[in-house]
């Protein structure tokens, strides 16, 4: 019996998301990843004596949007607080954060497990705060370096309730959270650049119990894989402790992806007393409910709603709906094409095969391809109307991307890909085949109806693949049975 079967795990996640603002939270320095160290800094974000913070309104707007996307309540006024602790990546010696009155609170957020089971987590709170700088520990020297480019970058900390019960569920929640925030346009959640970081609170209890166990917090999980690994490792560690008669201690853990194990970072006794108090440099401020309502009305359709619509209203299969919704740009492209085709399944097929292939081959995002939604629609419509075969359509897709000046039909003509569907040319070929394959025709007529396919093959061959198979089949039947 594995630990999963004897123990029920209770997981709550704290996610730090970097908001997509052009400048930092409390100064006007550029907020950008990858610049040379300490080039995006000023007296404010390096905390020179006498400097004061001023709030970046865009960070506030994105924070409200995120809260709305997570179903949170946005109170009409809020404030900032100072969280005090010493560390070299925190030049002020305190972080400006929000303590008792977060910007967003009491949200309800729906997602589905991998198996498609619907779930809901409570979003306890989501609050604004500033990021710290970064410490670099060069090898083989007895000093460390501090890069303050990141110091003061706006973050939204999203705290879930203890509502998740397995690493898989936690992953599904994080995936839905990530794509929701991307849809809402508040964050790009780029994990490689530290734009989406997670701390996990975990406790376990016997499956037949309803008393919560002691929880630990595992810090700084900066990839989905690490979150899954850390949760599994910590659940197993706690199970082993309890099964050997020990007790779980409330402490802060770190996860080592190389060993796949968690270890103690600091004990409860060493827990910080952050001495929160209201930030005196930033007075309480109003968040106008009318403005919030306006932002709410402007929220785009969120991925979960879009996915349901694709599956239920448009009749797409789950896999295609999932793929189309995974990235907002893809879904947007799909919808734009659909405007011209009104054929959801065909459009999804061509988009997910040929267009993604082109995008991959050319290493371009889809919206930078020559093939715009209108041009993709030409192709989808041409194939659907029988103008070209599916095989020919694939050739045509590449040609259309290479020759953006030519319409799908012009290219089909010039490449000699137009299917023979009309009576005249096709009838001639059918009659030829019936004449030249007289023995087969005779056996067919004497009851071996399976031979129709052999005759159809000959028609296709004689047309050098250009015959519309559906039309050719009908014509063969008509001619043979007459």
């Amino acid at each position, binding site marked *: 019996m594995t630990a999963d079967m004897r123990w029920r795990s209770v997981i709550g996640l704290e996610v730090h998301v970097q908001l997509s603002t052009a400048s930092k939270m409390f100064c006007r320095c550029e907020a950008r990843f990858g610049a040379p160290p300490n080039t995006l800094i000023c*007296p404010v974000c*390096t*905390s*020179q*004596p*006498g*400097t*004061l*913070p*001023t*709030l970046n309104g865009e960070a506030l707007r994105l924070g409200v949007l995120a809260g709305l996307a997570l179903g949170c309540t946005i109170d009409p006024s809020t404030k900032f607080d*100072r969280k*005090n602790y*010493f560390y*070299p990546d925190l*030049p*002020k*010696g*305190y972080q400006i954060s929000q303590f008792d009155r977060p910007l967003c609170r009491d949200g309800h957020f729906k997602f589905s497990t991998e198996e498609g089971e619907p779930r809901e987590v409570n979003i306890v709170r989501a609050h604004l705060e500033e990021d710290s700088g970064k410490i670099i520990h060069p090898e083989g020297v*007895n000093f460390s370096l*501090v890069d303050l480019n990141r110091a003061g970058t706006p973050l939204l900390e999203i705290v879930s309730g203890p509502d998740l019960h397995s690493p898989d569920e936690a992953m599904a929640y994080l995936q839905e959270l990530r794509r929701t925030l991307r849809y809402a346009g508040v964050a790009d959640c780029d994990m490689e650049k530290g734009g989406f970081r997670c701390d996990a609170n975990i406790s376990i209890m016997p499956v037949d119990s309803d008393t919560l166990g002691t929880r630990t917090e595992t810090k700084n999980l900066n990839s989905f894989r690490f979150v899954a690994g850390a949760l599994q490792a910590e659940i197993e560690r706690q199970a082993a402790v309890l099964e050997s008669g020990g007790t779980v201690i409330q402490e802060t853990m770190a996860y080592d992806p190389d060993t796949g194990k968690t270890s103690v970072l600091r004990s409860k006794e060493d827990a910080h*007393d952050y*001495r*929160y*108090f209201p930030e*005196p*440099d*930033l*007075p309480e401020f109003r968040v106008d409910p009318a403005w919030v309502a306006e932002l709410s009305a402007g929220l785009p359709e969120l991925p979960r709603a879009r996915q349901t619509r694709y599956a239920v209203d448009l009749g797409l299969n789950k896999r295609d709906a999932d793929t189309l919704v995974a990235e907002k740009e893809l879904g947007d492209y799909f919808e734009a094409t659909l405007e011209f085709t009104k054929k959801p399944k065909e459009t999804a097929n061509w988009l997910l095969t040929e267009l993604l292939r082109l995008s991959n081959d050319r290493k371009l995002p889809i919206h930078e391809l020559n093939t715009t939604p209108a041009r993709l629609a030409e192709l989808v419509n041409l194939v659907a109307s029988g103008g070209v075969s599916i095989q020919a359509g694939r050739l045509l897709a590449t040609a259309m991307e290479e020759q953006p000046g030519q319409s799908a039909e012009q290219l089909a003509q010039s490449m000699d890909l137009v299917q023979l569907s009309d009576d005249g040319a096709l009838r001639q070929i059918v009659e030829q085949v019936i004449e030249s394959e007289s023995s087969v025709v005779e056996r067919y007529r004497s009851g071996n109806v399976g031979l129709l396919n052999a005759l159809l093959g000959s028609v296709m061959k004689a047309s050098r693949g250009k015959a519309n198979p559906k039309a050719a089949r009908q014509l063969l039947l008509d001619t043979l049975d007459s």
Partner: protein
Amino acid sequence: MLSATSIAARVRSGEFDPQDVTEEAIARLQERDLEVHAYLDPDIERARQLADRVAETLRRGDDPGRLAGVPISLKDNMAVHGATLTAGSKILEGYRAPYDSFVAQRLIAEGAVLLGRTNLDEFAMGASTENSAYGPTRNPWDTDRVPGGSSGGSAAAVAAGIVPVALGSETGGSIRQPAALCGITGFKPTFGSVSRRGLVAFGSSLDVIGPLAAHAQDAALVYDVIAGHDPADATTWTGTRPSATTEKADLEGLRIGIPEEFLDEAVDSRVLESVSTAIKTLEEGGAITKVIPKGALPSMHHSIPVYYLVACSEASSNLARFDGMHFGPTSESKDTLDLLARYCATRADLFGPEVRRRIALGTFALSAGYADAWYKKSLSVRRLILNEFTALFGDYDLLAGPTSPFGAFKIGERSQDAYSMYLCDLLTAPACLAGLPSVSVPCGLARKGTYKGLPVGLSLTGPAGQDHRVLAAARAFEAIRGTPERSPIHGDDA
């Protein structure tokens, strides 16, 4: 020495050469500062460059501004790009500000000549300037005595006649108390009317920058220049702001209350005597004065503990950045790679004892388990104090009383007893907690007793946002009483 108002007028009219005015001020500084030690850095080159700029502006025929050629000294806790910014502390020794404070920008834009960096209690924590890591400033009235603090350097520079105006900062009394002890005018504006950008933070919800001047008119002029909305300080207020310079200086019909709480038993009797005379002067000017029986400000007696809790709590956080990691010197007393040990060594070695005491006090007051009883409780009492003042301003235009319970005391007299030093703020801390505008104007010298021959200050406090009326009353008072007495070091020079 001439007033800032008349220096600016004569420079603008071409009667005075700004470079000459500056050289004279430099000469006074070099001579008189040997006795008072008002300055941490005379910063003479900057003064000469600024004077050249004013001269150049005049040559072009442009307006050099309302403070053209006026030498003004700044307390060494206000940033001037490239100048020292020690805040009176070893922990900022050698540090140069990488940007200009809002007030420096405003002054320079109006043609002021910034001259020197004045001494202060370390991080503005003190009431005598003895807590400076660079030695105490002496009172120009008696160099064995303190000038008050924490803006003691600025007060002494003005009282010694080196400059007509200096800027100070106040958290609990640090402009008005040294002004009183040095016989000059000191004005603490309404919280939020002058930007704190570039002021080394002590108690952020209390800190205000204001002028110290030989003449009330000059305090008004400089206030008009430095007040105003600053988008970079979210606590500054927007909206119109009447001029303190042109506001009619008239006491006629002004209702002035004297709360009995201001006449505390701790107040020296000879100080009270001078203040009583001053109140008669106010009446001569047409003011209607009335002693308000005890009970109108019932929470005022909590001011000292509440002030120290709020200011020290904020200071414990504000001073966290001085960790030896990002700027300023690092203590080398511990040769260790242990992070905590390095933090501790730098902060133990480079902060002075009073600063360390206040950081410890503030850290305690904010700690888990104690914050409710100390920090949060003090915020509630602070609100009560504000409400009580607001209620009084329904019946009175201004409140009057002594600025300081006593006159300039001897160097060393109170420095060994923190609580007796904290009592210096007894009468100034309430207006700070309530964020009110308040001025201290010289009202003569004590005639007898411990402070015989030393200046006494009258305090006039108004409702929030009425800075112009408080300063107009100070101007009117000075007009009736005549030019304030000058310190022996200042002498009679014109």
